[in-house]
């Protein structure tokens, strides 16, 4: 492992059991997270990004999930640890921020108690020290009257406030890695910006590595250092954020950018990616998984067993189809062909 690499994932497969077969939702992902870095994982719903997150922190249903491969952290393979061993790491060295702050807090417990819980098991602080740590945390996440909020129940707080509380829970034991699973998706736009600023600010203080899972390219541009784009359980492109935004290569990445609504666009149609993400059971297990959604690109353009190629230092692209890729509209002009004959 390199010096500042905190977490290294090698060829991770996470499968869910449907009837008696396991279907891999994460299919051979390798990644690394460095200290003081925000790694964004981007992709459509169902591409396996949340599954990747829950695999790292071990929050999956052990009866229905199979995790294979290596997740190396602190010289341990997290994928092979027992639930009890994972408990010593979860919330302490690795923690998680969840998507929906409205349902992620226990409605019957006071805010202070919920933040304190992790401290009880991972630190040797006594009750009064824990109480003051809770207030300190609340202050750190930008809550103005921590004493009062600590005594309140979740339903008495707004969505943004609750997300701050979730963040306070996540950073309570000063973790080295924070996994943020769509932390801003459920919030309105003004609050989103505040929460993102808070994340950046906290990262600067703690030097933690953050894995930010999102489908929002705007969020990625704002906060990420490095981006991994996932499609159908695989990483199809990985690069530093500037490189990826300036120079997207993979057809899927380019299609994602292309489908962002443009203010100054002449067209009144939105660009879409043809087709749908294949469901878990119907996932093509060989060949380029994106090929079915770009049928106008000839089959020879794809690799038989698409691998990640380093096309420039630190920029990886899966498959070779990007070299031949062009948008359908490049030829047809005007609107997307899907709508052209209507």
């Amino acid at each position, binding site marked *: 492992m390199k010096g500042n690499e905190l977490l290294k994932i090698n060829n991770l497969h996470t499968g869910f059991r449907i009837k008696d077969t396991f279907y891999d939702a994460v299919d051979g992902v390798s990644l690394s997270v460095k200290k003081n870095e925000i790694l964004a994982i981007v992709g459509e719903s169902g591409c396996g990004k949340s599954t990747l997150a829950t695999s790292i922190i071990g929050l999956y249903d052990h009866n229905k999930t199979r995790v294979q491969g290596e997740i190396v952290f602190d010289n341990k393979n997290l994928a092979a640890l027992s639930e009890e061993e994972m408990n010593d790491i*979860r919330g302490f060295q690795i*923690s998680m921020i969840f998507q929906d702050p409205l349902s*992620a*807090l226990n*409605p*019957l417990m006071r805010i202070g108690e919920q933040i304190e819980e*992790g401290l009880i098991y991972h630190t040797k602080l006594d009750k009064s020290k824990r109480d003051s740590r809770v207030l300190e945390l609340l202050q750190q996440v930008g809550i103005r009257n921590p004493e009062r909020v600590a005594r309140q*129940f979740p339903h008495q707080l707004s969505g943004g406030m609750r997300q701050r509380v979730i963040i306070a829970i996540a950073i309570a034991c000063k973790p080295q890695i924070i996994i943020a699973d769509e932390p801003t998706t459920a919030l309105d736009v003004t609050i989103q910006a505040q929460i993102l600023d808070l994340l950046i600010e906290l990262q600067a203080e703690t030097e933690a590595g953050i894995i930010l899972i999102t489908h929002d390219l705007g969020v990625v541009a704002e906060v990420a250092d490095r981006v991994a784009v996932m499609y159908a359980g695989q990483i199809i492109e990985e690069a530093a954020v500037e490189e990826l935004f300036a120079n997207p290569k993979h057809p899927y990445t380019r299609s994602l950018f292309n489908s962002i609504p443009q203010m100054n666009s002449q067209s009144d149609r939105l660009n879409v990616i043809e087709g749908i993400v294949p469901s878990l059971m119907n996932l093509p297990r060989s060949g380029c998984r994106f090929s079915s959604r770009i049928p106008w690109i000839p089959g020879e353009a794809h690799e038989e067993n698409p691998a990640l190629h380093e096309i420039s230092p630190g920029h990886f692209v899966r498959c070779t189809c990007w070299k031949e890729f062009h948008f359908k509209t490049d030829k047809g002009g005007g609107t997307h062909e899907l709508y052209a004959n209507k």
Partner: protein
Amino acid sequence: MWKTIVRRFLIMIPQLFVLSVIIFVLAKFMPGDPFTGLISPQTDPARIAELTEKAGLNDPWHIQYMRWIGNAFQGDLGLSYTYKRDVADLIGERALNTFWLSLLSVFILYLIAIPLGILAGRYQNSRLDKTIVLYSFVTYAIPTFVLGLIFLFLFGYKLEWFPTSGSVDIKYEAGTLRYYWDKFYHILLPSFTYAVLGTTGIIQYLRSEIIDAKTMDYVRTARSKGIPMRKVYSKHIFRNSLLPIAAFLGFTITGLLGGSIFVETIFGYPGMGQLFVSSISSRDYSVITALVMLFGFLALLGSLLSDIIMSIVDPRIRIE
């Protein structure tokens, strides 16, 4: 909160008034009267007519009703035709018997149902869970009188562990410790019968609540803190799953005060259920109306009690 409680009590007055009219009229519409079957057929019909007239039973129902409600407001619920005793005294004595029986029943009921429900929910689909579910369906399918009779035969008659009828042995003097122990001894078997049969609802409810709660986001948050699984269960899953059970508590308590007709009849226990049935068959109007009024009041009280319990256990609910 006190304001609300007082207001809820005030709302009960018109509700109880409507109930009293309905029940009074319905009782009067029952065929027969208190004298049917009680007086020997040889009695002169003129004598019976005279008695009926004297009891005011020939007056139109609204006159009878006014007389009854007027007296009731002065605390006089009339005289029981069958027992020749003041209704209030009669009911008071029975109510106390039923109260103790109910209290012990509820206690045993929750003592059995809550642990079983929790185990079934926590170890969902395990052999333990399947056994508990089987138990709950079997007890649900057994009629009260069957289990009551089995218990009575086994523990009362064969093994002679428990008395087979009554509420207290007459040889003990009221007020002594022995007397109270004997009362407790008498209600053990009937309460146990009631409790065993009543567990199904709570077990099933609790089980499904726990299975639901396990998938909640806040449980995932709790797990992400790295706290032991038993703490996740005790502090997050169980607490939330017990809410609906707490909501039922008020109704359960007041519902039981109505007495269990089967249990009380089988165990020969002088309680409200038994009194209610016998008063209907003997057309003991004053007892019937007083009892139904009391049951009505208890139902209303039960819903208020449930609301109060909910507002205590669930911070999201505040009675304003």
